[in-house]
């Protein structure tokens, strides 16, 4: 039995939590989310390089919340999601345990402070490869960028899989669902697709933790992560602010500094 399975078994057996949300094997061996509620089922848990999904998305589902206190198998982005959700008043202190899997010992983080400390030791910056890709893309001409996104968005189905996969898209009413006024046209045409994606990116600015689940969820393979990473980068360079590193900090876009850059303003 792996250390992770052992820890899950222990938590369930002692009723410290009512459910362990982790990764299991789905059909064809792919990793998928599992909800373990009995100590005897702890053996179903796996953790390896294929376990990418940000399981914090389930924390916001009412049906999962009903199960009781949860222990969550986390990746770095998951931890940052938890802090971001806490900062947005969506989850309460002591409502969950985070299990950080590692080869030797499972680190158990029970408080936001513990998660903050753990996250502080991680590198929350974009990776060098991510930065390089952004750089390459930004270096393209304006028209090239426009054509690229027109082509990408022309395939968008407005299926909202990105939204469903995103743990920070927890709004019970999305702007796209508002019809008085109708902010975004309902059909999946080019204008509506563009507006939908701009809107979603803007609503994630200063909040997105770059877990990448939106891109993985997109059935037509639109590189949505590029938009998010662009904003992560801008928010950090412009305002020295990072999402998901504190359970209390204010959002970069609901705060300001009197000396924010304004070289573009006449």
């Amino acid at each position, binding site marked *: 039995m792996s250390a992770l399975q052992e820890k899950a078994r222990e938590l369930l057996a002692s009723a410290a939590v009512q459910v362990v949300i982790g990764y299991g094997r789905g059909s064809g061996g792919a990793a998928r989310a599992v909800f373990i509620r009995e100590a005897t089922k702890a053996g179903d848990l796996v953790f390896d390089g294929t376990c990418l999904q940000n399981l914090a998305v389930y924390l916001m589902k009412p049906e999962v919340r009903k199960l009781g206190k949860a222990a969550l198998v986390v990746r770095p982005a998951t931890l940052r999601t938890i802090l971001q959700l806490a900062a*947005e*008043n*969506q989850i309460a202190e002591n409502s969950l345990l985070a299990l950080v899997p590692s080869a030797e010992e499972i680190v158990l983080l029970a408080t936001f402070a513990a998660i903050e400390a753990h996250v502080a030791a991680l590198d929350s910056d974009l990776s060098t490869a991510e930065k390089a890709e952004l750089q390459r893309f930004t270096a393209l001409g304006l028209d090239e960028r426009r054509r690229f996104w027109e082509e990408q968005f022309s395939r968008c189905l407005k299926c909202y899989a990105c939204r469903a996969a995103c743990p920070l898209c*927890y*709004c*019970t*009413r*999305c*702007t796209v669902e*508002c019809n*008085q*006024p*109708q*902010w975004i046209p309902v059909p999946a045409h080019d204008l509506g697709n563009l507006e939908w994606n701009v809107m979603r990116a803007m*609503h994630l600015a200063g909040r997105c933790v770059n877990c990448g689940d939106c891109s993985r969820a997109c059935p037509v393979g639109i590189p949505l992560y590029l938009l998010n990473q662009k904003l992560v980068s801008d928010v950090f360079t412009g305002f020295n602010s990072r999402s998901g590193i504190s359970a209390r900090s*204010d*959002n970069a*876009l*609901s*705060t300001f500094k009197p000396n924010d850059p304004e070289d573009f303003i006449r």
Partner: protein
Amino acid sequence: MARIGVFICHCGENISATVDVMKVAAEAAKIPGVAHSVEYKYMCSDPGQQLVKNAIREKGLTGVVVAACSPRMHEPTFRRACAEAGLNPFLCEMANIREHCSWVHEKGDATTDKAIDIVRTLVAKVKKNKALQPIKVPVTKVAMVIGGGIAGIQASLDIANAGHQVILVEKEPSIGGHMSQLSETFPTLDCSQCILTPRMVEVAQHLNITLFSYAELESLDGFIGNFKARIRKKARSLDEKLCTGCGLCTQKCPSRRIPSEFDAGLGLRPAIYVPFPQAVPNKPVIDREHCTYYRTGKCRLCEKVCPTQAIRFDQQDEIVEADVGAVVLATGFDIKHGDFFPEYGYGKYRDVIDGLQFERLASASGPTLGEIRRPSDGRVPETVVFVACAGSRDPAKGIEYCSKICCMYTAKHAMLYKHKVHHGKPYVFYMDIRAGGKMYEEFVRRAMEEDGVQYVRGRVSRIFERGGKLVVKGVDTLLAARPLEIEADLVVLATAGIAQPGAEELAQKLHVSYDAHKFYAEAHPKLRPVETNTAGIFLAGACQAPKDIPESVAQASGAAAKVAALFSQSELVREPLIAVVDRQAPPVYSSCVGCFLCQSACPYQAIEKEEIRGRDGQLLKTVAKVNPGLCQGCGTCVAFCRTKSIDIQGFSHEQVHAEVLALLNRGERDA
């Protein structure tokens, strides 16, 4: 179906000279929903307004657009006219075709077309307008003034004299503040206590003023007109009703070597004490930290000698609750102490003192009875160096601002010294002399010309003691920046004026904003200098920034006038152009998801958390709620809300959306 009336004004020829008003009226009539469209020479005249009123009544209009001048000019006029005709005033909008059209463009089709565009835009907007009712908030006509220095005293007296109840809260045992410590005041050199103490007595005797001395604000809840204050009355260890203020206890107290706060550490006081003879209230307080009985369990001498048995060793702090409608913050300032100036030996050499200490030396009621004697050996100093900007305008010490009062009080100190020690040599090291104010420059000139104060332009680098003298190493930048050395007997540092310790904590209790230096922030630096961003809380005196007595008093009277205006009616009526969070039927209750990003964006702390609970008391949802008493209607929260759950009345999503579409000719297709 909307029935909109459009009224186009010629404004004499101001509009009609460049805009074809006939065409505008004709085109407006074609806009779907427009039931009436007319033009008139002067729409704001009585007959013009009558046109509007008649049309409302006769045509059963559901909305009015007056295409004329700027709404900043005549919106109130036409809204009043609509109200008189029975139409909710918020269903009237103005299309600005004068300032934004006829006056700024040449005569021609483009100008007329633009006027039509503007009218169409406002018609689209008014179709989405909703009838709104003014917000009425009841007002408790009691003011709480926090801080009993000159600003708090002035504000209390002004409000009380306007016939309103005042609760004055002072944290020290006596009111009076820093002004009571001062010797003479610039630029008139009249005795500070002589002008202050009558005001203090007036406070004590005023029927409308309740004084809580030795008390601090514990908490403040509520909003403008409806605050609930909890005030902690610290235990004086004394029954104030029984105490006659005879002073026997203070004379007999055996523990008498405690540095006096009032004398800035230059004099001593007993453990049971009245800060100064003219204190208001003139009742002692036991300093429990230094009292022999509290420290050792033995003594109780004061209890034995008290003729009225007023001493209460077991007295506890008491919490008093009060309903107040407005708050005036007048907590004043402090000066920088401690060894933050090691190069000047401040805190090390006893003869390097600060400005307040010099005030006590110069004061007739001070420890030397007004004789200038230096603290170390009591000698009369022959040479005194005054150092201005000691800590002010000094980013390295963390203070980049000018403390404003130092130039003047330093000139005063040098003058007082010269008046008292005729053969003495006063020097002032300064960077700039800031003497803007009535008779201020003249005062400084007098110090230089009549009293021979030597002004040296430059900062002091270092002060050290040598053979009983303080060696001041300075410079005069006007003399090719040559270093100068002065052997002084006494050095007076004009240390920076800073916020009161605890200013931040108090600001957080009151939800008022403050700057990086913990001075309280005014609502607008130019136009609302005595208000805070929290409606109903006003500022007076140096808690906002260092300022002198006349300025503090002026601001206090200003704050009092604001309070009196607020109290002039029993209900506060405000325009309902504020934000609201949507409320829906169960089980949704509200589309708000409670992320509260709006909360940190709100400049007025107007967004509160509302807990929605089921019948069994179980918490179902926490959602945002706008406090209508606090919201000023900027709409910043609206643009943040991802679920579009907050909207602002008068500039709602539907209204502005319709305007954008209509302006670009597409409104009617989408509507």
